[in-house]
């Protein structure tokens, strides 16, 4: 997570921490690494903070929120099927 910051300091390539967090989030969603409801809700909270701070555009936020909600539905569906509901 802090490698981007180090690019700034050590390599001189502008690479904000925020972009890095976004990339990590996209990676987590793509590779289905978010497997609990709690972790997905925490990511949603993190995204909302980034949006409030202007570190994320409305479009970027919406795109990621849609994906996370989709992922949350799948996780809930899976939990229900495991409980035999």
């Amino acid at each position, binding site marked *: *997570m*802090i*490698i981007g*910051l*180090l*690019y*700034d*300091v*050590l*390599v001189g390539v502008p690479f*904000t*921490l925020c972009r890095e*967090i976004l990339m990590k989030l996209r990676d987590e969603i793509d590779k289905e690494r978010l497997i609990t409801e709690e972790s997905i*809700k*925490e990511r*949603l*909270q*993190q995204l*909302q*903070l980034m*949006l409030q701070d202007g570190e994320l555009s409305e479009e970027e*936020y919406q795109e990621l*929120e849609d994906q996370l*909600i989709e992922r*949350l*539905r799948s996780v*809930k569906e899976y939990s229900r099927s495991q409980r035999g509901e």
Partner: protein
Amino acid sequence: MPQQGKYIYGIIEEPQPRRFSFSGIEGAEVYTNNYQGLAAVVSDIEVNEIDPTRKNVLAHTVVQDKLLKDYTILPMGFGMIAGSNDDVLKLLEKNYPGLSRELARLAGKVAVELKVFWDQEAMVKGLQGGNEELTRLKTKIAAASSPIEAQRLLIEAGRMVECIALDWKERYAERVYAVLKRLSIEAKLNNSLGVKNILNASFLIDRSEESNFQQEVYKLDSQYQGKVNFKYVGPLAPYSFINLELEPAN
């Protein structure tokens, strides 16, 4: 047609049925379901599950914030839906002693939240500030024979950032928490919200003390300005401070 449920925002003390002037989730009317002096604040909803989108979470929070102005509220977490008015009443009936006790205990109290983040510019300055080890790494990265080698060196440097972040956490965040904890009735640490977040805490305070508490937060903020950034939110419904596990209606 989907079955109509009751979305529950929280529990208040209110003997009379009420319909509020503000709206709730999906613009629905907000009203009370009363049981022996207690009331569940609800709105009608045509689904049995609701997504925690920003829009929905905001609508949920706005209702609780409005209620907080006039009531002590035991807030429900986002997404609590009962099947019918009868289920809501059963929930109140089943949990009556616990709900009454918690409402009495939390009367006149509110929660506030403080999040502290390290400042990125300050961290960059901290890293550049005559750190010999980093200067050595910088030279090595510039001369790295492959991207993999450069990545390995960056990871090594990453550990140094973690050390600085840990030092700031001890030096600023823990000190802030200790000071504010002393001024509060109860304090709780919450999960960190990412790498920059070195403190995420909730405090339960007397409503009458909010202004003093806020002044202390501003004082601490100006003391540590330039190194860390404060995000203060309040007053809030006391989510983190309710000592009650609700028994389901059914």
